[in-house]
């Protein structure tokens, strides 16, 4: 068995109220499938996928799915710290889930500190709106909120896969850009970003890449 070759590994976390569709989004993103029936997540779940950013750099995404239920709030907290990016997930047809987004965001910011994560506001179940369901969160309102807080924004459907790839891709690209710009660096004891292994030249390249960033901080 051959291990997939990648240059970086990013850890992302998905947060948002229960039933908004986090698990479904991840299932589609990693498996390309959708299930009508999806049990609420108990605690956390883990997914992984390889993705390429624009310059062809291979990124392995480690994706932590969390339970939206209140009773697991204290459990899911532990997963923020090692994340470099967070998908703030709401249900387009559920107003409350959008109203809670600021809470989720501040919770994430607080726990990811001192790191500044990349956020993407993800509206789910777009297919329902297209099939005559009642939209409770307008695209404009969500966009305005996203702009105000400098977040990416996408509306997706895990059922037909619309924009699912896009939601993850924008976060990944942004994290990579921030590495390039030197804002993010690989740190010991933090699993948000790790360098990959397995490709000898890439390994060297990465080390060279990472060095200046480290020096600048010291």
């Amino acid at each position, binding site marked *: 068995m051959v291990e997939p070759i990648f240059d970086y590994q990013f850890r992302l976390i998905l947060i948002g109220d229960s039933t908004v569709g986090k698990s479904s989004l991840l299932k589609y993103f990693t498996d390309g499938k959708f299930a009508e029936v999806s049990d609420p997540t108990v*605690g956390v779940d883990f997914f992984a996928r390889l993705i390429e950013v624009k310059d062809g750099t291979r990124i392995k995404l*480690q994706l932590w799915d969390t339970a939206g239920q209140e009773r697991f709030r204290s459990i899911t907290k532990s997963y923020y710290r090692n994340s470099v990016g967070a998908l703030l997930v709401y249900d387009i047809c559920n107003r409350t889930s959008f109203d809670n987004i600021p809470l989720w965001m501040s919770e994430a910011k607080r726990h990811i500190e001192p790191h500044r994560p990349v956020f993407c506001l993800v509206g789910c179940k777009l297919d329902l709106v297209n099939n005559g369901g009642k939209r409770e969160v307008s695209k404009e309102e969500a966009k305005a909120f996203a702009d105000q807080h400098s977040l990416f924004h996408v509306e997706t459907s895990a059922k037909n896969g619309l924009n699912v790839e896009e939601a993850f891709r924008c976060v990944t690209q942004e994290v990579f850009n921030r590495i390039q710009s030197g804002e993010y660096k690989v740190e010991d004891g933090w*699993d948000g970003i790790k360098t990959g292994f397995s490709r000898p030249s890439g390994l060297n390249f990465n080390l060279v890449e990472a060095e200046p960033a480290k020096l600048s901080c010291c």
Partner: protein
Amino acid sequence: MFRSRSWFGGGWGRPKNLHSLEHLKYLYNVLSRNQTVSEHNRSLLVESLRSIAEILIWGDQNDSSVFDFFLEKNMLSFFLRIMRQRSGGSSFVCVQLLQTLNILFENIRNETSLYYLLSNNHVNSIIVHKFDFSDEEVMAYYISFLKTLSLKLNAHTIHFFYNEHTNDFPLYTEAIKFFNHPESMVRIAVRTLTLNVYKVEDTSMLAFIRDRTAAPYFSNIVWFIGKHIQELDTCVRNDADHQSQNRLSDLVAEHLDHLHYLNDILCLNITDLNHVLTDHLLHKLLIPLYIYSLSSNRRRMSNNDLVAQSLSKVSLTPKTSQNSSPKMHDVTNGKVSCVVALFLLSQVFLILSHSPLVQTLAWIILKTDKTVFENGVDKLHDFFEYEKQRERQSSEEEASGSVSSEKDKDSSCSKENLLYEQANINITDEEKQRLVDPMEGMGSVKNHPFLETVYEALDCTENDYAALFGLSLLYAMSSNRGVTSDITEQVLRPKKSFISKSSTTSKDVKYTYNTFLVEKMLQIIIFSCQPSCRVRLVTLELALKLFIQLTVCDGKTVLSESHRHTIETARVQSMALLRNFYKSEEIFLDMFEHEYCDMLKGSLNVEWLCMDSAILLPPTGTPMTGIDFTKRLPCGEVERARRAIRVYFLVRNLVLTLNGEVETQLPLTNPQSCVQIDQALDLNNSDLIACTVVYKDGTKMRRFLVIDILQLILVEPDTKRLGWGVSKLVGFLQDIEVAGDKDDSRCLHITIHRPISGASTNRVPLLNAKFVFDDNIRCMAAKQRLTKGRIKARQKKMQHIARLLEIPGQSGPPSPAFAGQGGPYTRSSVRPTRVENRALFNINRGPGFAAPRRDSSPGVIHRADESIRRHRDGESPSRGANLKIENGRRDARSRDNSSSRVRSREGSPRMPRPRSEEIPLELIKKAPHSIIDMAPKITIIPRPQTPRVISSETEPSTSNEHPKEVIKTEISVSEETSFIAEENGEDDENL
């Protein structure tokens, strides 16, 4: 923990480093190639599973990429898949799987890893998986896996296990299915698990426990405890011969386990849970079985019996276990013997302290009266509730100022509240009246059927079998933290009331106590002081403890004159009892001191006592049962003496406590008056014998031998002050053995045994060495002094005991005579014992014991010089430093001459007369409070030294002819009279 399967089974492509990501990848390959368990791969799988746990734990602490790999490959799902397969000897694999999971959960420290493992109900599906529990190993690993999980429970993780939406809590519900598993390790794990669950502060989870599981779980526990004690009872009934002590002790231990477990739950203070548990315990176990068994006495009316029986039958059969339970009722009618009930109730009160529970129980035992009792068991508790209610009401009424007309005397007095003293006068008088008259007291007892049974148990006329349990129950109730004073007051503790004299406004404090019970205690105490009585020491000690609780209030004794008088009688009788055993044998003194040390080790611990199943069997006398001396009757003369000594000490202690006094007479050796090692001593003017001490290992030391009143001291000259020495070794003269050396007349073999002490059980002698003297004369002198010192030391102690026991002949020469043991001459010189001597102990009797002493035999008198002065006193050497040590040597030499003469008479049938009197025994100045009066300052007047050897034997040893004033003198004289002095002339130099 790990099965001993080889780590190094070989295999292709396996990485060398076992703790590495590479190895985990290798193992992942193994698992993915062997997804179906079969005969062929199961060993490989087992080994892989075990290795995976190892690597994950290693990675948890060293390399996060290890766990990442485990996550990415979703390796947990392999585990579940393996578990669900039924083929290929799956229990073999399952055991390893459970073990691997157990190790993982026990050791993973990384929070996110742990939560991941707990997530998504994987663990719950393992918990509910139908393992083959008939396989012992599967059972053991399964339950310890559950227990490990329970240790991870907290307010956060509880949600992985308890789902409030589905009201599902498999960890708990699956575990309690095994609460009565035959394997005790399983039961213990279940109990630990339940406690870990209850500890979690989660309201909805606890509500689930209470609403969905508490009633069935607790009623099952209670039912099984009931079943258990039936077994225990049967075991006691059928084992009068102490044949199944082991079984009994297991059953008792089991009952203790139950109680401790219940107490652990109650101590968590979960109100709702405690409510359910208390309810079950009271109504299905403690009242119908334990308490109603107290009503099984012969004189009980039959209809009551029936009520009790039917009620206990009903309550003891839990709805859920109806099928398996009927047997026990057929056998025992739902009751246990009174003795067992008392014992178990004692345990209950000693272990449980949950107030609502013990309070109710205590109330029922102490206060239930006949009318309530006849109404049956359910009414009992109702009545208690009603009483409480009434009490509350009446105190409210009092507060509002209206005096209730039907005020109940037990419940209404507010002792502390002085405002309402008017109301209390009547009560106090009434109560006093009732208590003054013992018959009336008994009358009120008659109305309390359970208390009456307890009181009846205290009767020791035949034996003290039940009495011990009656006492322990009363003691346990009165010392239970959860039982409030308003219940124990007057019954188990003195009652304090304030009386205001009608004429004045001044108030008196009035104490009353349970006269009836106090008299019961006094009976036991008096009984214990009679020869050949059947009361065990432990019973006496417990009675004394209870007695103190019954009669001491606010730090003082509230005992009436007549009861004080009875105590005095007991004291006199305990002395008289011991006097019968006061003997000349050395063993008496040794025993006396040993028993005292033993007593000092600590007073009776009632909780420990009630853990001992041995007391459940009828009292026995034979030590061959292995039962503790205090918990059985004495066997033989020596043990009877031991017992008498103990009884004496116990009663003496009681008297001291009641009088608020401290012991000043015991132990016989006052450690304060002893010379310690490394103490500097002023040896100017004392007798010193130079010697070389040769140890068994060949080391030699030059020392000076000093013989004090009680001690032998080896000193080294003090380099700083002339004439002073530093003690290098001290030993008690009473513990020495001296023997000559047949080849070297300058040598002595001296053994100093360790003193009998409570602290150490070290029986290795303090010293066992050869002493080489400058010449045989000095050697003889030393030997004489040691031999005599030993005798004298013992005599002094015996005299002290005689004084304590108020032996009448005390003022005269002490009755028992001693002869040193072990020395060759004393042995050869034993004379026939006197007619007057009391019977000797049958054992340990041999030559060398108890040589008679003639009361008027001549002693050579010496001046008791204060030649050794303690450095401790702080005085600097006032006298000019001179050659005192040299003097000492010279003195010794001069006396050695006489010693040699004695030696030459060795073998004579007459008592040899070692001229020890010429070698004055040094008297060290003692502190004035020295326990033993050493009479150090008395100059003893020589008495006529008429050798009356034979005739004196007819003289009573305990003659009381000498007036008190001369006691000290007489004693001192007699100290010197073991041997007959012949050469009077030489004595003068010592005067």
